């Protein structure tokens, strides 16, 4: 593979590189096209006075009008991708506010990946830093939930372990159990029950109250459908410790530290979690 040892660097097409950096800078700049060609990133490549000369006029459009077509499509495409990933936020904020925030986000975190799937990964962090958002705590919780849902949607399938796989264990073996969750699962600690809002939207029901409430959530996928499972703080501490590879006796200690739980409850929770198909393997160390 001799070709691989000769990477094509920007230095090999210096003028092309300049033109591409210029066009991209114009596309990513906010405001009208006339000011886009005056932004520092664009002017670094070509002075604004030269901008119209870089593009041919058509029968019907001036050079900068043609550039503006690409600017409009950039905006539309990315905002649309965020709308698809964050339908709850869109519903809560309304079209106008959502699109304004989406544009601010895109300007602040322009896409780096080849896939649009991960365009919104930094949106929850971004929203937590924006001033003037209505109900900022709820908005952030909702954004974190919707981001978790996108990860769960795309994760690989895992094998599913059955509860019978550890029937008849001694107490010592029981303490050394290690349970691995399926991959299509995320754990969320939120200050608002954002999942109740999402469920209401999906079922087209009346929207629930938006009062803060400490919420411990498992977001998971089963037969390609998304589910939320709300847990008590001790149950969540137990699951989280197991997900972090702790053996059951240590995980139960985390559960007690979180203020509750008993062996009987653990057994009941396991019964539920296994029936929800949340684990992919059971091992004894």
């Amino acid at each position, binding site marked *: *593979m001799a*070709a*691989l040892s*000769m*990477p*094509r*660097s*920007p230095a*090999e*097409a210096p*003028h*092309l*590189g300049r*033109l*591409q*950096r210029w*066009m*991209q800078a114009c*596309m*990513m700049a906010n405001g009208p096209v006339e000011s886009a060609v005056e932004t520092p990133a664009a002017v670094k490549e070509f002075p604004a006075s030269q901008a119209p*000369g*870089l*593009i*041919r006029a*058509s*029968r*019907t*459009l001036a*050079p900068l*009008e*043609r*550039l503006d*077509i*690409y600017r409009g*499509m*950039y905006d539309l*495409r*990315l905002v649309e*991708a965020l709308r698809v990933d964050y339908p709850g936020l869109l519903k809560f904020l309304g079209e106008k506010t959502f699109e304004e925030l989406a544009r601010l986000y895109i300007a602040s975190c*322009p*896409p*780096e*990946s*080849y*896939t*649009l*799937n*991960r365009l919104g990964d930094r949106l929850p962090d971004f929203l937590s830093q924006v001033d003037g958002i209505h109900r900022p705590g709820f908005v952030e919780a909702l954004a974190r939930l919707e981001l978790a849902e996108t990860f769960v*949607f*795309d*994760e*690989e*399938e895992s094998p599913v372990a059955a509860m019978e796989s550890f029937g008849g264990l001694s107490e010592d073996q029981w303490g050394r159990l290690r349970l691995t969750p399926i*991959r*299509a699962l995320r754990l969320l600690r939120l200050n608002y029950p954002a999942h109740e809002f999402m469920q209401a939207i999906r079922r087209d029901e009346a929207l629930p109250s938006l009062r803060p409430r400490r919420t411990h959530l498992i977001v998971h*996928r089963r037969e*390609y459908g998304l589910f939320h499972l709300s847990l008590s703080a001790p149950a969540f501490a137990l699951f989280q410790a197991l997900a972090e590879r702790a053996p059951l006796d240590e995980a139960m200690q985390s559960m007690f530290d979180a203020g509750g739980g008993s062996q009987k409850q653990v057994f009941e929770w396991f019964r539920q979690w296994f029936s929800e198909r949340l684990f992919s393997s059971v091992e004894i160390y």
Partner: protein
Amino acid sequence: MANRWGLPDLGFGIGLRTVHFPHILAERPVMDWFEILSENFMDTGGRPAYVLDQVVERYPVVMHGVSMSVGSTDPVNFEYLKKLKQLARRTKARWISDHLCWTGVSGLNTHDLLPMPYTDESLRHVAGRVKIIADYLERPVFLENPSTYLEFSESTWNEWDFLAELTERTGCGILLDVNNVYVSSFNHGFDPFDYVDRIPVDRVVQIHLAGHTNKGTHILDTHSDHVVDDVWQLYRRVYQRMGGIATLLEWDEAIPSFDTVHAEALKAGNYRTAPEQEARDGRAIHAA
């Protein structure tokens, strides 16, 4: 008139789209082949991957991407190519295509198919990258002519000559999007028949057809409607020059039912007519 790789005319296919998943799984429609948008399946192990595996079992699949960015002056993205190669194995892809364009620079991605200046510098640059990519993928690269909305003043080549020269220099092939030829011809004021008449016949492995949106001052390649008659006439000309080539109908906005999209693709069969046959049909009409 076969292409130089001996790749088959797969018949009339459509793009595999999420809204049609339930219909395809439930009805298993009779269908020549599907084209998938590579990026929609590269990073998911969820439902899209499951549906894809079902489709691959029953239909020939071709991969079409939008992020290869062969024209970019950024370094080649081997992480992307690795995933592309893995997906090609999983789908038993008959071939892989992308576009003659760039999508981003300086580590960013605009997620648009951006126009190249058609210059000697661009040609050298793209040719070098196409060879690297084809070596890595261990298969030929097929590039589609994009719809463009601007031309750079510095261009010294026509798009069709640039593309033809690129195939000579690199051994790459062409996915000829007949609608894109039409859209760009409207936007830039050239004769679309000149374009298709100058494309090297043995390099074309696939055709794209689609609808578009005429904004009056320019046409946008929206894939949002039926194919217009001017584009069908151009398709007929391509057939008369090149013979039967795997033909794919793209519909990406306001997507109608599977059957409507499929029926639109099958219309292409009506335009696969030889010049002699047209003359005969013409006489028959006069006689009647």
